[in-house]
């Protein structure tokens, strides 16, 4: 049944749409129907705006004792990421080693599978964060240093 609850929020969970108060300009994510500063004056007036695609890690932790449903991801990294305008969001950091996550690091949202309601249930998708740029790894590839590989498959 929680499939319905999250279906209501696809524009937030899939596309990271935030809400903005037209009176004070403050941006909220997840979106709010009432501005925390302007309160009643903002009711019915909040606007939908996209969150910027780049954020910085404010704090992070490596989780060893998993939340239910995340056991197969241990250890996983959670971070609070700050976006333009001071919007702060919590989420996992993926596609990098735990040791490489640092305060101040630039990240971008990526679309990932978050949880599922059992083998027969709905799959919940949403956002996680990944390093904003792709540093080329110190290679441990079997084909040798650098980008390599060109021509290897053609042999024989």
């Amino acid at each position, binding site marked *: 049944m929680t499939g319905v609850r999250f279906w209501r929020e696809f524009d937030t969970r899939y596309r990271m749409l935030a809400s903005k108060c037209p009176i004070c300009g403050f941006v909220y994510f997840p979106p709010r129907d009432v501005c925390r500063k302007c309160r009643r004056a903002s009711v019915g007036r909040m606007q939908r705006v996209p969150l910027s695609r780049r954020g910085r890690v404010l704090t992070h932790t490596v989780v*060893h*004792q998993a939340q239910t449903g995340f056991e197969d991801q241990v250890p996983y990294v959670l971070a609070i990421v700050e976006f333009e305008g001071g919007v702060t969001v919590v989420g996992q950091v993926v596609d990098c080693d735990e040791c490489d996550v640092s305060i101040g690091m630039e990240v971008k949202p990526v679309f990932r599978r978050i949880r599922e309601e059992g083998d027969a249930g709905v799959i919940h998708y949403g956002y996680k964060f990944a390093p904003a740029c792709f540093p080329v790894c110190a290679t441990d590839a079997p084909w040798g240093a650098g980008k390599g590989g060109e021509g290897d498959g053609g042999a024989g």
Partner: protein
Amino acid sequence: MRDVAIVGAGMTQFGELWERSLQDIGLESGMLALMDAGLETEDIDALFLGNMSAGRFISQEHIGALIADHSGLADRGVPATRVEAGGASGGLALRQGYLAVASGMHDVVMVGGAEKMTDVSDQEAEETTSMAADQEWEVFFGATLASLYALMARRHMHLHGTTPEQLAAVAVKNHAHGAANPKAQFRSKVTIADVLAATRVSEPLGVLDCAPLSDGGAAVVLTTVDRALELGKRPVVVRGSGQASDTLALHDRWDLTVQRATRLASERALKQAGMSLGDVDVAEVNDAFTIAEVIALEDLGLAKAGEGGRCAPEGRTALGGELPVNTSGGLKARGAPPGATGIAQVVELYDQLLGRARGRQVEGARVGLAHNLGGTGATATVHVLEVVR
């Protein structure tokens, strides 16, 4: 508003109480408090009970009725109310009981807190505690309560240079205190090295930085000061009661290393009491995680912003120090059944103020402060108690 006093207090053993049900726990703590007060069941006008999640732990809601029933209060139709605010459920119950007497609505009120966590698996119990955080925007992405406090800890370390050793010192202190508390879940001491080497839960926090899963119940009896004197008691007066809220999710806080609800609740309680922190002789403070006590000390004003980590290593908050904090052992060593914690804190302060805290007495303690927190800080209660000589 009438002056309200505590006239009796009691608590069960805290720990893994395999042979006791929630009903047993609620009943035992209530009866101990009643007997300590020298009153009868018939004297109780109302029951307020703090309980976080009996629905998840024992598949039972309607807890006020459950405990009223098992204690004989239901047969007299006594109003029974269960209140909830995560780990602050006990503090909330105390406030509701206090308001009931202060307002004149009721004269003698039983306030209890109880939780039975061990009838479900550890994983289910931890999942349930994380329901005090934001389910949709924190837990949904894999957050646990420990991981959220870990995020606070890392930020605190980044901004203020707080070290893992300073956090560990909180656990060491509270275990040392708990060793003298016969009702504590853990009576064993731990060292800094133990805490640093413990299995990681969510970095930088390890198992010994985190309060345990616990069963337990605690209760106090409240009445008017006049009635207390009639009963021949030394009234421990509730001089101030403060409560405050904040955003549910950690990432919505204006400052990740400040729990504003604590600041507001303590300002309100101390103002009502006409006191300042300097008047407080002994305190029970939220230490669900070692970093929580560090942050709480800053928010209560014992330490300047960013300097909370120094208190335990410098001995300021140990027995014999400037302001002994968590002489009971705190959530860490005494145990932390979410519904019961807030009341257990008050039971400790009651014993301290009456000079009954054998083995861990703060000499001449006259004023006590209880700080109870829910989730990552969305609800805080602070109560200031003073014994009338």
